[in-house]
C-alpha cells in the first residue's frame, strides 16, 4: 500500500517581537530610567505616560511613588535577563548585601508602621532616604547592560550629562555665568517697585533670566534635536531595508527553495527561475510597475510574457517603444498578440519568441516573431481556428490589420497593427 504524502514548503517569516510578557518585566532598554513604568504599562495595557504621571504625582504627594519605584526596580526582572536585582544580590550571599537589603526592608517596615499610626519619626526623611538607598542599590546591582543604559540616561540629562561628557572645566565656563545671570536677573526682578520707573531694570532682569536659561540648556537642546533627526534618518533607513528584505524573502528565497526541491527536473527549474527573474527585474527596473500606468499597454504585454512563459518552455523577449493607456483597441491587440505568442510557443519549436510593440502618436504596431520551423500558409485550411478567429478577427473588429508571414524552416512572424482610439478624424 502506498502512502501518499503531500510535501509542503513552510517558510517561516521573521516576525517582529510581539506579545505581552507574563510578568511585568522592566523594559530597561526603552524605558526612561529603569523601565519600571514601561514594563507596568505593557503588562496592564495602559499608556506608559499614565503610569509615569502616577509615579511623579505619588512622589510629590507622599514620597510613596519614589519608594514604590525603587522597590519595583529591585524586585522586577529586567526584560532579557532572568533574575531581579534582589535575586542576584541575595544569591551572591555576601554579608554586606544581606545587611543592606535587611536595612532597606526595615525602613520600608517603619514607613508602613507609621502609616498605621505609630508615628514617632520624620516620615518624609525616612521615605527619602529609603528611596535614594533603593535607587543606589539598583544602580549598584544592575547588570552591565543596564548600567550602560543608565549612563546614557545620565549623559542625556542637561547638567549631569555635560559633566559626564566634557568634564568640570568646560561645564564651569557655561554654568557659572549662566547661574550668575539667573541670580542677577531674579534679584533685579524681585526689587521691582513702581510700574514705569522700573521698565529698564525689569527688561534687563527678564533678559538676564532668559539668557541664563539659554546658556544652561542650549547645548543640551541642540544635541537632542540633532540626535532626533539622526534617529529619524536611521529609522527610515531601517524601514527601507526591511522592505527590501521582505521582498527578497517572499520572492527570491522562496524560489531558491523551490528550485532545490525540483533540482532533478531541468524544465521545471528553468521555468521557476525564469518566472522569478522576470518578477525581480520588474521590481528592480520597471518604473511602470505599480505606478499610475498600471493599466498601460506595456504592462499588459508584460502580463502576456508572464503567462506564456509560465505555460510553455520558451523565453519571450519583450521590447516596447512608447506606451499607451489600455482601451478597446489596445486590448484587442494584446489578446491577439497573446494568441500569436502561444502559437509560436506551441508549434514553432523555437526557444525564443520576440515580441515587439511600437506606439507612435497615431498607431500601435505589434510583431510576434519566432525563428522556428515555420509552415506553409497555403497548406493551412481556411477554417483553422487559431489564426482566423483569435488573431485576425479580433484585430479587424477594432479596425486594425493582421498578417502572417511564414517560411518553412525559417520562422513565422505575425504583424498586428491598428489606429489608436481617438486619433481618427
Amino acid at each position, binding site marked *: 500500500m502506498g502512502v501518499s504524502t503531500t510535501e509542503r514548503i513552510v517558510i517561516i517569516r521573521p516576525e517582529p517581537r510581539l506579545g505581552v510578557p507574563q510578568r511585568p518585566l522592566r523594559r530597561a532598554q526603552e524605558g526612561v530610567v529603569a523601565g519600571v513604568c514601561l514594563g507596568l504599562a505593557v503588562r496592564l495595557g495602559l499608556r506608559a505616560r499614565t503610569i509615569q504621571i502616577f509615579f511623579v504625582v505619588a512622589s510629590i504627594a507622599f514620597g510613596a511613588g519614589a519608594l514604590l519605584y525603587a522597590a519595583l526596580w529591585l524586585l522586577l526582572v529586567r526584560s532579557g535577563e532572568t533574575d531581579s536585582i534582589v535575586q542576584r544580590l541575595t544569591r551572591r550571599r555576601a554579608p554586606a548585601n544581606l545587611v543592606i537589603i535587611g536595612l532597606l526592608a526595615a525602613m520600608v517596615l517603619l514607613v508602613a508602621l507609621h502609616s498605621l499610626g505609630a508615628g514617632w519619626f520624620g516620615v518624609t526623611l525616612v521615605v527619602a532616604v529609603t528611596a535614594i538607598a533603593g535607587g543606589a542599590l539598583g544602580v549598584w546591582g544592575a547588570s552591565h547592560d543596564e548600567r550602560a543604559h543608565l549612563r546614557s540616561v545620565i549623559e542625556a540629562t542637561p547638567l549631569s550629562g555635560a559633566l559626564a561628557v566634557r568634564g568640570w572645566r568646560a561645564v564651569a565656563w557655561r554654568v557659572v555665568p549662566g547661574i550668575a545671570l539667573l541670580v542677577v536677573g531674579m534679584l533685579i526682578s524681585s526689587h521691582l517697585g513702581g510700574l514705569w520707573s522700573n521698565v529698564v531694570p525689569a527688561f534687563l532682569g527678564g533678559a538676564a533670566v532668559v539668557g541664563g536659561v539659554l546658556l544652561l540648556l542650549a547645548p543640551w537642546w541642540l544635541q537632542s534635536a540633532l540626535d532626533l533627526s539622526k534617529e529619524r534618518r536611521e529609522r527610515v533607513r531601517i524601514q527601507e531595508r526591511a522592505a527590501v528584505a521582505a521582498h527578497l524573502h517572499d520572492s527570491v528565497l522562496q524560489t531558491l527553495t523551490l528550485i532545490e526541491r525540483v533540482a532533478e527536473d531541468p524544465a521545471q527549474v528553468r521555468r521557476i527561475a525564469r518566472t522569478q527573474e522576470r518578477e525581480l*527585474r520588474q521590481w*528592480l*527596473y*520597471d*518604473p511602470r510597475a505599480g505606478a499610475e500606468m498600471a493599466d498601460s499597454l506595456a504592462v499588459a504585454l508584460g502580463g502576456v510574457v508572464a503567462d506564456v512563459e509560465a505555460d510553455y518552455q520558451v*523565453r519571450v*523577449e519583450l*521590447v*516596447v*517603444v*512608447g506606451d499607451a493607456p489600455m482601451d478597446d483597441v489596445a486590448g484587442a491587440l494584446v489578446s491577439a498578440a497573446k494568441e500569436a505568442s502561444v502559437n509560436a510557443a506551441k508549434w514553432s519549436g523555437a*526557444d*525564443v*519568441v*520576440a515580441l*515587439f510593440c*511600437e506606439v*507612435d502618436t497615431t498607431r500601435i504596431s505589434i*510583431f510576434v*516573431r*519566432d*525563428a522556428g520551423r515555420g509552415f506553409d500558409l497555403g497548406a493551412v485550411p481556411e477554417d483553422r481556428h487559431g489564426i482566423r478567429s483569435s488573431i485576425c478577427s479580433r484585430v479587424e473588429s477594432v479596425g486594425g490589420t493582421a498578417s502572417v508571414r511564414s517560411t518553412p524552416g525559417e520562422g513565422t*512572424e505575425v504583424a498586428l497593427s491598428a489606429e489608436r482610439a481617438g486619433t481618427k478624424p
Partner: protein
Amino acid sequence: MSLPTVFLVDDHQLIRSGLKVELAGAVEVIGEADEVDAAVELIIERRPDVVLLDVHMPNGGGQRVLRESLEAGSTSKFLALSVSDAAEDVISIVRAGARGYVTKSVDRDQLIDAIHRVAGGDAVFSPRLAGFVLDAFARDDPAGLADLDPELDQLTAREREVLRHIARGYTYRDIARELGISVKTVESHVSSVLRKLQLANRHQLSNWASERRLS
C-alpha cells in the same frame, strides 16, 4: 583568419568560468579580471581584440574600465554584457564607448557572433537596446531647445527601419534580405546609429534614461 582574442571582466567567478566554457574553441580567451584596476592594467598589457565587460561591478563598474582603458590608449573593442535591463545602464555604457550590448541570457551562438562582429569593427545591438534607442530618439523637440544637429541628433528612416527589425528579433542576415540590402549595409546603418548614440548631445538623450525612471 585567426580567432579573435578576448578578455573577460566580471566580478563573478561563476560567470567568468561559464563564459570560458561557452567560448572555448570559438575565440581565444587571453585573460580575465574581477575588478576594475586589474582589468585596466591587463587590457592595456595584453591588447585583446574584444573585452567582454560586465556593467555592474564595485568601484565604478564597467564604465570606469572603459574610460580608463580608452584614456590609456587601448584599441580593444568593448562589448558590454549585463543582466541589467535598466535603460540608464544600457545607454550610459554605450555612450561611454562600448561597441555593443548583449544580455547575459544570450545564447552561445549569438554571443560568439556578437564577439566576431565587434572584433570586425561593427556594432552589436540586442533587441532591447534597439528598443531603447528608438524610444530615446523618438521624442520630438517641440521647443527647439536642444539645438539639434540633424546629422547627429536624428535617425534616418532607414536606420529606424533597421532598428525596428532588430527589436523584432531579426538577425542582420534576415534584415538584409527583408530590406533588400547587403549585410554590409545593415552593419553600416547600425554602426552609424551607434555613432549617433555616442556623440549626440541632445538634452533628451542624456536625460532620457533617468527621466524614464522617474516618470
